[in-house]
Each structure stands twice: as structure tokens, then as C-alpha cells.
């Protein structure tokens, strides 16, 4: 089951295809990304903006994290993409090819200006930044910390590999450093990390391997390029019993703290701060989505 808290899977819905956009809501992906960029031909950008605006206004999926991928910041489409996309009130904008913190701050300012004009709560629209080049990866930490709007970093492996003059493979040694560098930056900044897509739609075993790798490395989610990949990736992000047990202990400690009216709560000698609680709740949400049965009311906390 998809959930708004969860970011296990992102699936694109092309703004160039009506059927694609209407059908995309029925799959189990957590995040739906309405696309204005690569899947939309250059002479169809205007049509795609109108389509996404109208569809989101009248038929907004209730149970998904809604994102719109705009064109790159230096493209001729970017400004108008923002005008349309911000007003469609997605949960986040997905920005391709981000390379510097300054770019992020510029985008954030432009988004804020539109939020103000449109009467949208300022800061409510988040940014998911895709790193698609060596520069982006090298600047990952500053990008992640550039602005409070930044909620996640995504690894765009195809273009990144090209920028490295490497060869893209299923095993992925060519993106190994980039994955880890981006992950570390995300952990330092306290934002989510989304792993690269697995390009071979027909290779189910390969996808399972790759998704398992994503989870093991510590990623929060992965991009899917086809509905067939969604359930497999979701399954890979099922939390381990160890993670669940720890989350239970965290939530129990918080409950206990509330009962005793304690301001600060600790577990195993360390303070439980907000990020840890959020992490525990996310693990519960993941467990629930995976159909794992846990006694008590942990899923409601």
C-alpha cells in the first residue's frame, strides 16, 4: 500500500500522455512524479503544463506524495514551469541536474515568490534535487543543506555516469562512490536519499538485487521506470525485524516519557530527538505497508 510518509518508490507519469497520467494513480508507488522534462518533447512543453495543472486540480490522487519534475534551471522552460507547477500545489518539485547550493537558493526564492502571489503557505512546497553529474555529487552536502525546502536528494545515474565517462552497468561499481557520497550528505543534512533507477525492465532478479543494495546502503527509496518494478522495490524496503524492534522500543520510550510527564526521553543512554522519532514512525509505516502484523497500536502512533 502506498503512503504519504513513505518514499520507497517514485514512478513518473509523462505530461505528454493522457493515458499514462490517468493510469499512474492506480499502482502502488509512494510518490507520483508528473513530468515536464525528459518524457515531454520540446514542442509539447506548453501542452504538458496545461495537462498537469488541470489533472492535478480535478483528480488529485489522495494517497500519494505528489511531485512535479520541472525542466532544468538553465532551460528556457524553467520559469514558466515554475509558474504552472507551484500553483498546482505538489508536495514537492523535482529539479533535475542540480549542481550547486546557489542554484537551490535561487529556485527556493523563485518558488517563494510564486507561493506568496498564489496564496500558498510559504515554504510548503519542498524540493527534491536530482544530482546528475560529478559536480552535483561533489557538492551534495551543500546542496542538501542549502535550504529548508530541500527534502531529498536523488541520484540520476544515467547522466552521472556519462559525466564521469564511465559505463553504466547492472552491478553498479561506476556509481558506488556517488551513491555513498550522496547518502552521507543526506544523513548529515537530515534529508532523504533516493537511489538511481534500474534500467532493465525485464530483469526481475537484477532489480531485486539492486533494490536490496539500495536498502542495505541506507537509501530511503528508489525511482522506478515502469509499474512492474514498483512492487518489487516496495518489497525490498520492508524493514528488518531488528529495525522494527528498535522502532518499537523508541515509541515505547516516548509513551513512557509522556506518561511520566518527562520533557526529554532517553534510550540506551542517548537522547531521543525528533529525527529518531520520525525514523521510528517511518519504520512502522514501512512495516505496515509491507503487511507485517504487529500487536498493539504502533501503527497509529
Amino acid at each position, binding site marked *: *500500500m502506498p503512503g504519504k510518509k513513505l518514499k520507497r518508490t517514485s514512478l513518473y507519469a509523462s505530461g505528454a500522455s493522457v493515458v499514462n497520467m*490517468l*493510469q499512474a494513480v492506480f*499502482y502502488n508507488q509512494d510518490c507520483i512524479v508528473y513530468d515536464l522534462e525528459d518524457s515531454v518533447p520540446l514542442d509539447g512543453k506548453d501542452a504538458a503544463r496545461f495537462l498537469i495543472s488541470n489533472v492535478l486540480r480535478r*483528480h488529485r490522487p489522495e494517497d500519494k506524495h505528489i511531485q512535479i519534475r520541472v525542466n532544468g534551471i538553465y532551460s528556457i522552460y524553467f520559469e514558466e514551469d515554475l509558474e504552472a507547477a507551484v500553483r498546482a500545489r505538489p508536495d514537492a518539485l523535482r529539479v533535475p541536474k542540480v549542481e550547486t547550493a546557489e542554484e537551490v537558493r535561487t529556485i527556493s526564492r523563485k518558488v517563494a515568490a510564486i507561493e506568496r502571489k498564489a496564496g500558498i503557505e510559504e515554504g510548503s512546497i519542498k524540493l527534491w534535487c536530482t544530482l546528475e553529474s560529478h559536480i552535483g555529487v561533489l557538492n551534495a552536502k551543500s546542496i542538501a543543506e542549502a535550504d529548508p525546502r530541500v527534502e531529498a536528494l536523488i541520484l540520476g545515474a544515467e547522466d552521472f555516469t556519462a559525466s564521469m565517462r564511465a559505463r553504466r552497468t547492472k552491478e553498479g561499481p561506476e556509481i558506488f562512490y556517488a551513491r555513498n557520497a550522496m547518502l552521507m550528505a543526506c544523513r548529515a543534512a537530515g534529508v532523504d536519499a533516493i537511489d538511481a533507477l534500474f534500467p532493465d525492465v525485464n530483469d526481475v532478479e537484477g532489480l531485486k538485487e539492486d533494490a536490496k543494495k539500495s536498502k542495505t546502503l541506507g537509501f530511503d527509496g528508489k525511482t522506478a521506470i*515502469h*509499474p*512492474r518494478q514498483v512492487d518489487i522495490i516496495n518489497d525490498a524496503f520492508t524493514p528488518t525485524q531488528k529495525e522494527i524492534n528498535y522502532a518499537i522500543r523508541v515509541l515505547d520510550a516516548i509513551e513512557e516519557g509522556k506518561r511520566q510527564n518527562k520533557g526529554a526521553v532517553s534510550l540506551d543512554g542517548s537522547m531521543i530527538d525528533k529525527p529518531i522519532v520520525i525514523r521510528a514512525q517511518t519504520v512502522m509505516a514501512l512495516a505496515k505497508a509491507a*503487511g507485517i502484523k504487529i500487536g498493539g497500536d504502533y501503527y497509529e502512533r
Partner: protein
Amino acid sequence: MSVNSLGRELPETIGGHKLVPYAGPFALTPPDSCVSSKRKLALLRPGESKMKASIKDAILACGLRDGMTISFHHSFREGDMIIGQVLTVIRELGIKGLRFAPSAVINIRNPSIVDFVKDGVIDRIEASGIRGQLGDAVVDGLMDNPVILRPHGARPRAIESGALDIDVAFIGASSADEYGNATGLIGPNACGSLGYSFIDAKSAGKVVIITDCLVDYPCVPTSISQQDVDYVVVVEQIGDSEKIGKGAARVTKNPRDLLIADWAAQLAAYSGFFENGYSFQTGAGAISIACTNYLANLTAERGIRASFALGGLTAAIVEMFQRGLIRTIQCSQCFDAVAARSLTTDPNIVEIDNSVYANIFNKGSMVNKLTFGILGALEVDTDFNVNILTGSSGEMMGGLGGGPDVAAGAEVSIVTLPIVRGRTPSVVKRVFTLCTPGETVAAVVTEAGIALNPKHRNYGILKENLEKSRLKLVDIEYLQKVAENLLGVPKPIECTDKIVTLVEYRDGSIIDVIRQVKRL
């Protein structure tokens, strides 16, 4: 006008015949009488021949006259060339006013049946579905006598009850010998099982075998016996091999259809009925074939084996059989060439009579032994009634097939369909034409969720088991709302009072009627 138990209005009589309103899936019992047949005793002395030089000679020998009833089977699907040839000769002979009774849906385009109706050769039609030009013409009020449509199992019932007496049965065979032993299992245009023509062979007044491949006597294997056959005609071509079906029916790549198929298979697997020895039927549609593949994997994973697969055969089912996951296939018709060829490869792949498969008024048909039935549909309503005949503009599109039979017999009947098709909602408040009664439908699977029918006899078990699964269970009303919220509310189709088609249930009662559509 009377109203049947599903709220559908029908006239009390039509053309002098009293109509029996539908009152429940097993409400009617058969009359206490012997079966009806037009078959007579005959004498053929040694040395006498059944061979006729032409279709014309065979028709004349049969004594076909105005007003009689003729029949054909549909096993050559869109590739059939026999129906056209026979009707053309009949027209040339000046014979008129015939009742045309094919075994299922007639799909041939050239020549079109409409022409023979317009020429007066045919004035009554009884089938399981009509489409294309003929369908449009009927819905526009072409025929004076309403067409009668019935599901697969109801045809042998109608024949044996005397409602559908066949004077001459024309049976196409891909191989036959000079004495009338005939089969669809071998030959250059092999179509597989001829199960739908068995009743015709046994009950018709005269039986003519038409083949393009005469084999040495006696033909082996044989599906139709020489003892039932009057004449044999050899023609150039009985069918277009390309259209009869080359290779396996293609597996869909549409992710929406795959999702529905996957969920339907999972529903079966978690239903509580998925045990060693289960039985199933899937159809010929894209979703059904995909569902077979998912079901096969779940069967293998569970370490069990199905006891039998029933009805229409596809390459997907053959593959599941070859993996050792089904003990026997009981095949009434073949949907592709792989299926057709498989019947001669293994003694556990068996050709069966359509009557054994689905007839309600015999001593027990195989649908009664089904665990799972996967059915397609054009529309389903919030009472779980199914429409498998008419499209969103009232046009004839589908065919009753074996859906009503399977639904009545199976423990778990599962209707699979996308929530919308273009701007046509698939889940509605009231189906335009009622073909399968909701009380026999256990579940509806769409990409927007799965609805269980609270009025189905197995609802309790299904609900209890499926709630433990990860499947998205919703109310049927929710599905209807999803479709409506997405598409908007369509203007209802307007009809005149003229009834153009009677839709019969398995037992001969009238479950619905189709009226002429008012064109803009």
C-alpha cells in the same frame, strides 16, 4: 410486461411463445420428459457412399426447405470460410426464412451475415453473441424476430428441450474420412476441440461434414462419429489458417492489465480455496491469459497442483500443464494454434463436449466442479450483475460465452476488468444489459481495488481470508464512484420499445432484453 427477479422488464409473450422470467440461478427444474431430437434411424448399405460432389448437392440431399433451422460451429473463429460458402449456396438455391443457429459468436466479415438477413435467407438468429455489421444492424432494428442469445451451456439445453430443433447441421472439420468420421484435432487447418458441435451431430435432422482434408478411412483420432453423419463434402478451403490462429495468443504488456491479472491470481491464492486439487477456468482475454501465468507461479510456489483446467484453452494453460501444475485439461474449444496442437500430444489434454462443460439440465456439468472462474466483462454494476454483451453506446460487442455458466458453478467467480475504458465506466449503478446475475459473482477485480459480493454464498470465507492479505479490498460502491468521479456522468442511452434481442439465462428463462437504440 412482467418483471424478473433482477428487476428487468420483459414481455409476457413474443411471437406467440410464452417467456419465462429469470427467478434465480437454480429456480427452474427441467420438465419431466425425454430429450428432443430430430435425428432419425437410417440405413446405409455396404458400398453406398456419403460423399457429395458439392455443398449444393449436400443441401439438396438434405431436403433443406424454407423455414428450417441450420447450424454451424464457431471453432474456426474469424478464419471460418464454411458459413459464408454454405449460405451463399443456400441463397442461390432460393431457400428462404431460415433460422440460423451457430454455436456461439459469429465474427466473419466477408460475406457479412447482414446481407443474408436482408435477402431474406435468414429471418431468425439464435447464438451466444453477434457483432460488427450484424450486431449494429440488429440493434438498429433490422430483424422482425428478436435474436435469442444464450450462454454456451444453454445451447445443448435448448436443443434437447426442443426449443432449438436443428434440421441441418453443417460441421466443418479439419480432417474427415469418406464415411463422416471427423475431427478438428489434425489437418492443415486444425482448430482443436470441436466440442460445440457434438450436440448438433447427435440431435440434428441431417448432418453434413465439410472438410478440406480427406483422410484414409477410418480417420484417427475422431471427434465426431460416422454413425451421426449423413453426408461428406470436400471443399478447397474450410478456413483461413492465419485467422484461425497461428502460434500462441500474445501475452499483454499493458501494466494495467498485468496488475489486474496479478491481483486476481492473488485473490485466488489467498481465498482459502487454493489447495492441492483445485480447478480453474480462465478465458481468452488479455487479462485472463496473464492471470493464468500468475496463477501458475503461485501454484508452483505453494507446491500444489491443480486437478483440472476447464473450457477454452490457450497456450498459457498448456504451458502451465507442461510445468506439471495441472493434472488434466478438459477442453471445449481452442483459442490459439498452440492449444489446438496440444490436444494430440498428451492423453491428459482432453476434448470435451460443450454440454459436459456447462449444460445446466444434464446429470451434472463440469462447471459445478470448478473452484475458480476468471471472467471478463464489459460492465458490472453495484449489485455485481455483469454485462458481457453491449457497449457504452448500446452497441453489440461481446458474447455471452460461458460466463454465466462458470459463475453459477464456481466456488469463487472473479470478474476482472479495468475501472474505465476510455470514457466508458466499467463499474456502474445499473448494467445496460444483464447477462450474469450478481448473486453468482463472488468478486470484482479492477486496478482501483477489489470488491467482494456480500450476497455471494462464499462471502464470509473470502472476506475473512482476504482481509489477511495485502489486497486492496473496497466496496463496489467505491469503485463505481471512482469511475464516475473520473469520467463524469454520461447521458443514458435511449431506446425505443422494440425488443431486438432476448437474453436467456442457462435454464432458458429470460434474464434481460435488448431494445432498439434511438439514434441521434
